[in-house]
């Protein structure tokens, strides 16, 4: 068989304040110059020379301390790029105009639970595709343009494909999106809306995890074909081949929450609650706040709590154990976190431990009830994943983990689409509890 040496791409060994990439498992350090020399690109995701663990981006924090101050940051506009020195891009080519998403004080649920509850709304129109995925995707596509890549392969439970399709069309990048055919109609329509070529969406009779493998193998093959033809590599998977860079985009969730909470007068410890799919957003948001602490830019210190549905809880189930038991074909109404092999699961558990937080599991019915609560009591129509967060908070209060008066931030990571009644009935048909859904709707109509 013929060898196919991967050609170099246009990345360079100097990116802003980035010092190196570091393995989260064994600690092996990869300066950018080493990556470029050994792999022809700095866009590498795994510890290829030691343990194959995930790589994470590190910055020159000493130099950053001399460059960044609270006063200087306060003067900057509240945009996605406010702390650009802590993001691994050379030049912002796309998504330059993103604003902070809102952090609002809960009107009713917080009072009911006796806590100071804030809702971080990544389901707001401040995200162009109404989910937090716009954050990591903004980073990945800027890296793609910087490196001269022109085609994206992406597997998704919905939100990532919607965000990627939008950004691909804004960036002039071709897209191949892979989704499980069981994905809801509304999400498929939202993906199609942004596709320049309708053939860019493949609905496969596979689970999300298997779609993921397919996207990676197809991307690899496209790069091999390019290498054989003497062309540079130009195909990428945002959350895989670019993962260390992609994840950095989600740090902005942590940056924003810290800066917004400080404006509200909150200091010190607080509870920060996320739903967990792969665990990447959870870890990145924590990293963002830790970096601000390290640079003396915030006094806030989060206790990190991750919530998963009982029907798909590989991360929570692995707490205190050596490894995960993957969930094959996970089924939960919160489809955006139906991930059986969580890519950042080990790291998420480490973050819970380090921050003195933990994990919570919630039932499907609690997810749905909490989602309806968000809609009825706060006026927020979230994807069911929003109900996961709120159900987790209710459980933590009930168990006495969150005490009266505690400050709690709930991340609502995606907007529902259409009407909540249809969303509920569609999902309940699939899960075989239409009668209960109708009863819930009946109860809603009496409120």
């Amino acid at each position, binding site marked *: *068989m013929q*060898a*196919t*040496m*991967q050609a170099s791409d246009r990345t360079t060994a100097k990116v802003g304040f980035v010092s190196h990439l570091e393995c989260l*498992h064994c600690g092996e350090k990869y300066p950018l110059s080493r990556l470029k020399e*050994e*792999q022809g690109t700095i866009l*590498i*995701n*795994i*510890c*290829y*020379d*030691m*343990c*194959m*663990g*995930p790589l994470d981006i590190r910055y020159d924090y000493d130099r950053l301390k001399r460059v960044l101050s609270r006063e200087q940051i306060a003067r900057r506009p509240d945009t996605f790029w406010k702390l650009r020195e802590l993001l691994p891009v050379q030049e912002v080519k796309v998504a330059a105009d993103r604003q902070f998403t809102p952090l609002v004080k809960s009107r009713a649920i917080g009072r009911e639970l006796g806590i100071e509850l804030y809702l971080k709304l990544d389901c707001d129109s401040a995200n162009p595709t109404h989910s937090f995925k716009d954050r990591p995707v903004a980073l990945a596509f800027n890296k793609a343009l910087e490196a001269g890549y022109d085609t994206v392969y992406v*597997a998704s439970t919905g939100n*990532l494909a919607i965000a990627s399709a939008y950004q691909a069309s804004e960036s002039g990048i071709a897209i191949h999106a892979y989704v499980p055919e069981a994905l809801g109609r509304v999400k498929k329509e939202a993906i199609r809306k942004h596709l320049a070529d309708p053939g860019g969406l493949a609905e496969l009779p596979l689970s*999300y*995890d*298997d779609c*993921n*493998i397919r996207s*990676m*193998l197809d991307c*690899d093959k496209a*790069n*091999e074909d390019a290498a054989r033809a003497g062309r540079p590599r130009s195909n990428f*998977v945002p*959350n*895989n081949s670019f*993962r260390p860079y992609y994840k950095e985009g989600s740090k902005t969730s942590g940056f924003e929450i810290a800066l917004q909470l400080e404006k509200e007068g909150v200091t010190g410890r607080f509870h920060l609650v996320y739903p967990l*799919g*792969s*665990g*990447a*957003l959870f870890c990145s948001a924590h990293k963002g706040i830790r970096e601000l602490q390290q640079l003396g830019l915030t006094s806030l210190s989060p206790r990190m709590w991750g919530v998963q549905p009982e029907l798909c809880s590989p991360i929570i189930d692995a707490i205190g154990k*050596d*490894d*995960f038991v*993957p969930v*094959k074909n996970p089924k939960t109404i919160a489809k955006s*976190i139906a*991930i059986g*092999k*969580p*890519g*950042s699961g*080990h790291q998420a558990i480490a973050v819970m431990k380090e921050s003195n937080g933990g994990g919570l599991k919630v039932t499907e019915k609690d997810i749905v009830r909490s989602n309806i609560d968000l809609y009825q009591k706060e006026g927020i129509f979230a994807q069911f994943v929003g109900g996961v967060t709120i159900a987790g908070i209710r459980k933590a209060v009930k168990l006495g983990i969150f005490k009266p008066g505690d400050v709690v931030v709930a991340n609502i990571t995606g907007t529902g689409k259409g009407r909540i009644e249809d969303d509920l009935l569609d999902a309940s048909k699939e899960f075989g509890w239409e009668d209960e859904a109708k009863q819930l709707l009946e109860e809603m109509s009496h409120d």
Partner: protein
Amino acid sequence: MIKVKIPTPLRRFTKDLAEVEVEAADVKSLIEALEKKCPGIRKRLCEDDGSIRKFINVYVGDEDIRFLKGIETKIAQGKEISIVPSIAGG
């Protein structure tokens, strides 16, 4: 012979080959055969005790060996093996 697909970052050990062919009856003997042909690759795929590293997925055909018999999983002739780093998703 069994075809093994090698992920890009590990092709340093396969002289840049994307696929390597070896004789093997199960995943355990496959790793041994790979190491003979591509010295250094075993250390990247396995822990010191011989188990597959937690960040590596090995597929026999379309099935992850975690859902089969792990390293003892038999490999029928003609099956393709894919080695895929596990960091992805979400």
